[in-house]
Every structure is written in C-alpha cells, then in structure tokens.
C-alpha cells in the first residue's frame, strides 16, 4: 500500500502539481478506483476520460478531499494530502452543476473564498473585480446568479476558484449541462482561460471530443484503472487497447479470428467470412479471436474500383444509408459478401455528395492505419456501444 515514499520527499519546486500513488477506493462490492498511480505536470491541462461509472468522479472527489481513499496517497504540489480537510487543500473545484451560491451575488461568490482566508474586505473586492475582469465579466459583480447566462455562470465558477490561486483546479464535467452550441464555445474559452492563467487543470469528462480538444494529456479510464495515458494524438492514432480504440473517436469495430500475420499486418476473418487487414498491436496467436478497428476517415470510397489505390485490397459494397452532417458527412456501406455494415467518411470536397441509397460502390483502406488487438472479452462489451453505426450487419 505504501509505495508513496519517493514522491513525498521530492523538492516541492520540481514536484508535479498532482501526484497520485497507489490510490484505491472500494464501494461495497464495486472497486471504483483500483490502485491508480499517475502525476500531472505543472501548468498542464489534464483530462480523465471515461464512461460513467468508470471511477473518474470518485477519483476527483478523493483529490478534492470529499471522499477518503481506502489506500494510497495524493500529493499536491509535493505535499501529502493525508488527513488534510477539503477546506485546507490547495485545490479548488468547478462542480458539475457549478454550485454557485444563489443567496449571494456574483461579486460575493468570487469573494467568498478570499473572505474565508481572512483577506480584508476592500482587498477582497479589489481582487474579485480584477478576476471578473480577466474572465470577461467586468462590472457584473452586482448581478444575481440567476441573471447570468450559462456561459457567464461557467466563468463565475472558474473565477471563484482561480481567485484563490490554487495549485490545481479540478473540473467535474462542467460543460455537461450546456447546450451543444454553447458547449462548443465554452470549450474554446476554457482552453484560452487555462492558457492565460497557467494553472494546472484536471478535467473529467465522458465526452471524448471535450477531452481531445482541451487537453495536453488525456488518461482514458475504465473500471477504476487508466487504460492509456497520452496526448490526444497518441490516443487517437495509437490506441493501446481495444477499449481506447473504441472509446476515443468514431471507429468501425470488426470482430473475427486471426488467420495470418504478414510482418506488422494481421489478417482477420469475420464469422461471415469477410477478410480484412490491420496493423497488429500486442501479441496474438493465429486462430485466436481478435478485434480490428478501422476509422471512418481511413476508408476511401469510389464509384469506380479503378480509382482506389492499387496496393490496397478493394471491397464491393452497397450504400445502405447516407449520414449527412456537413463536413462530417458519412455513408453507411454494406459489404457485399459478409453484409457487414461499415461507416465511411465522405470527402469534405462534397465530391461524392450525390451518392444514393442502393448504389453499388467500391471501398478500400490502408491496413497500416487500421489496428487490431487480441480479444480479452472484457473490453469488447464496452466498445460495442461506442459507435452504433458499426453494428455487425
């Protein structure tokens, strides 16, 4: 349990802002956080991405001090948080529904933490006003909370925490309650705020797009453990596990049996007899069951097979439905022999916008840009729902 020693003695200046060592939490028969260790560098934007129930909220609440861990340690700015009450930790939290105090106006909300530290009244006001100005809410300090728009509330919640100059700002899916348009806007705003303040942000979310857009580093969490940690690009292009491949970004999920290996490329055959190729990740044995992931944008589709690259295997398919979504438009194809449904992104030029349901087309992809893993049974069930369009025809 106590593997924490090396970190506790570290020089506080060089220590990461957040260090988590062997952290565990058990709820009845459910292991919410399972022997987790990681650290977050100073000034970075770190996201924890996972489906609901993966333990990310428990992890965040343990960092904030609202939930006591069963084992392990949390270090903030190099200092152990064991026995430190939530109101004495150098972390602040932006709550899921913001938890702005409705009985106080905007200014009082921002001043609240300062006043608790015994900062003089005038000084409180000065700092709160300066902070409100920085988040673009100058002059709003006399407004009531219910007079603010969703985006403004968000900024007040962040201002209320940042005015205390915490080592670490925790954000618990704060964008979840906003509508789509505002959410897109707030993503950008949040990233800019973090960049301008330079405070370390730890952000939890179940929305992979938020995590990818906002973060310097993302950890994908599942069943109380991190499946993978890395930059958004690494997670997207080099998923370490089938779970990550299925959870981060859209992906076609193809389950089959390994029929052969040619260097780095594996050959997979589905039950319906469709033969596909993908880059091998990890060890796998011929005859064992594997799962491959092919991203929609990796697949090329053409009316004429001859237009597809020469060196890729070509498949014939039929347009099953058109999924028009502006620049994200895609088409759902049914592979001719196996009737497997595969989602294919359409070129953004609009070149194939005239495709019609029922039309016969050809498609192919570069197998080095697809990836396959040995099945471990557990992960497959979690990924099955990640992209409805990839159901097995």
């Amino acid at each position: 349990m106590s593997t924490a020693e090396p970190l506790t003695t570290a020089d506080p200046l060089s220590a990461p802002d957040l260090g988590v060592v062997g952290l565990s939490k058990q709820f009845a028969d459910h292991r919410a956080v399972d022997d987790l260790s990681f650290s977050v560098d100073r000034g970075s934007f770190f996201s924890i991405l996972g489906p609901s129930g993966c333990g990310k909220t428990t992890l965040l609440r343990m960092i904030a001090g609202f939930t006591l861990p069963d084992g392990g340690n949390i270090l903030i700015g190099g200092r152990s948080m064991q026995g430190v009450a939530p109101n004495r930790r150098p972390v602040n939290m932006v709550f899921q529904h913001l938890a702005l105090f409705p009985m106080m106006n905007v200014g009082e909300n921002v001043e609240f933490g300062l006043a608790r530290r015994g900062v003089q009244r005038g000084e409180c006001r000065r700092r709160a006003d300066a902070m409100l100005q920085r988040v673009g809410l100058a002059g709003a300090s006399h407004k009531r909370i219910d007079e603010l728009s969703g985006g403004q509330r968000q900024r007040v919640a962040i201002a209320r925490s940042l005015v205390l100059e915490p080592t670490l700002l925790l954000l618990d899916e704060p964008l979840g309650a906003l509508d789509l348009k505002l959410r897109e806007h707030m993503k950008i705003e949040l990233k800019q705020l973090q960049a301008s303040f330079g405070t370390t942000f730890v952000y939890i979310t179940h929305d992979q797009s938020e995590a990818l857009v906002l973060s310097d580093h993302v950890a994908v969490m599942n069943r109380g453990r991190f499946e993978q940690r890395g930059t958004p690009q690494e997670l997207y292009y080099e998923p370490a596990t089938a779970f990550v491949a299925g959870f981060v970004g859209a992906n076609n999920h193809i389950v089959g049996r390994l029929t052969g290996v040619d260097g780095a490329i594996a050959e997979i055959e589905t039950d319906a007899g469709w033969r596909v190729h993908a880059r091998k990740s990890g060890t796998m044995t011929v005859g064992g069951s594997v799962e491959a992931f092919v991203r929609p944008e990796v697949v090329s589709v053409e009316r004429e097979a001859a237009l597809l690259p020469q060196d890729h295997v070509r498949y014939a398919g039929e347009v099953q439905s058109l999924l028009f979504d502006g620049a994200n438009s895609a088409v759902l194809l049914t592979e001719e022999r196996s009737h497997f449904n595969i989602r294919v992104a359409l070129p953004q030029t609009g070149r194939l916008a005239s495709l019609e349901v029922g039309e016969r087309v050809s498609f192919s992809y570069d197998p080095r840009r697809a990836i396959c893993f040995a099945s471990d049974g557990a992960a497959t069930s979690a990924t099955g729902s990640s992209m409805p369009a990839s159901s097995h025809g």
Partner: protein
Amino acid sequence: MHGVWQRRLMLTLLLAPALLWLFALIVLPHVDLALLSFRERTAPREYQAGLAQYRTFFTEPLYWHVFVRTAIMSMLATALTLVIAFPIAWVITKVARGRASSLLFVVCLIPFWVSETVRALGWLILLRESGVLPVLLAKFGLTAVPVELLYHDTTILTGLVYTSLLFMVVPLVSSLESLDDSLIEAAYDLGANGLSILRRIVIPHAAPGITAGCIVVFMLTLGNYLTPNLLGGKNSQWFTELIYTQFIVRFNWEQGAAFGFLLLALSTAIVALGLRLSGQRFVDVMRRS
C-alpha cells in the same frame, strides 16, 4: 372548449362555497368581534360605542402583564423550538441517508398524530409531585423528597416546545432538502469552515423554512390554551385563559372580544414583523409550511 356562458356558471358555482365559508365563518365573525369589543354597556341592554374594554386592559396591570408575559414566553418557546429542531432537520436531510433518513423523519412525526390532550396527560403523569420523574429523582437521592415539577415556567416552556416541534421540523426539513449538497462542498472547497457555511450558505438558504416554522410555532404557542393551562395550573397566566374566563365564565363578551382582538393584533404584528425581517411573502411562507 367550454362556452363563455358555461364557464361563468361554473365560476359562480365554485365561488359560492368559498365566499360563504370565508365570509360567514371568518370575515363577518371578526367584524362582529371588533364591533363587540368597541361597545360599552351603559345599562342592562343599553350599549354605546366606546373604548372601555381597551381602557380596562391598559389600566389593569394584571391584564397587560399576562399579555406581555404570554408574548415573551411564546417567543422564547419559538426560539427554543428552532434551536432544538434544527439539528434534527439537519440529521434527517444531510447526515442520515436513504431509509434511515425517511424512517427518522416518520418517527419524528408520529407523536404528533396523537392528540395534544394525550401528550399533556403524559407530561402530567411524568412531572407531578407523585409522578414518575420526581419519584425517580428522590429514589436516586438527587432530591430528598419528591418535588413538584409541574406549574413552573420551565414546565410550560417544555410542554410548548414539545407540542411545537413538528411544526418546526417539517418546514426545516423541506427547506434543507432543497439545499444542494454541492453548494456545501463548494464552500468547503473554497476554504470555509462549518460555522461560516452555516452562516453564509445554510441559514440563508433555509431562511424561508425557518421563517415559516417560527411563524407557525409562535402563532400556535400564543393561541395555545391546553398546554399552559394543564402544565402551568394557576401559575400559567396565559392570555387565552383570560379570554376564556371573560367569555365563558363571566359572560363579559365585550371584554373577551377586546382581549381576543389584542391577541390577534399581537399575533399579526409578530407574523408581519417576521416576514418583513426575513423578506418573505405571506403566501409563499404558508404554502411552504
């Protein structure tokens, strides 16, 4: 949908019972009571308008002494009830969870389904000189002989607080229930301690419930007859007893009516003051409780 005509008819039919109820049983009786209190009897069956009853009240020290005493005791009982009920409401809403919480709430309500008469009987048996507590105290040597625990002001206050608890617990629970736990966590997170959370977050949020509870408890205590009368005996000196005496024992209805109006005025004034102080609206508060 409905014709205009039909709606008019429906409206009239529905208004009739409401108006009959409110005017025949509330408005007119009180107007009559007011008129009654403002008339003087000059000779048998001869009356004229005058302030004699109110003059009597202010010139007779016993009367206004009892009046002031009743008001102060009622305020004291209200404050005590709030202090005792608040932690329980807090435990029900924020500490106990799930079944334990609802069970505790129901258990707190149970005694109040039983008549106040029964509860007063319980206190009588417990507290009178030959009662359970004095006998126990004497047995354990805490007092030399069984002492009379009835007929003290403390006894009256105990009885009044006991009777009033429910009316405080219920509005407090409903107002604390709506307090989002994340607000408290957020305040902790921003460095607040228990006391400042209570002062800045919990009490401002629960203010409507506190006001509602205090108003109802104060009013019920002020207008209570049974508990002060039984537990206080001759020492109770409760204002409602004066009203009863004037009306039922002495048949001096004019004087009784004046006393009744003074009590009503006091009750209304305190209720209005409470609403003003906490910035609440009457309708909202009553709906809440």
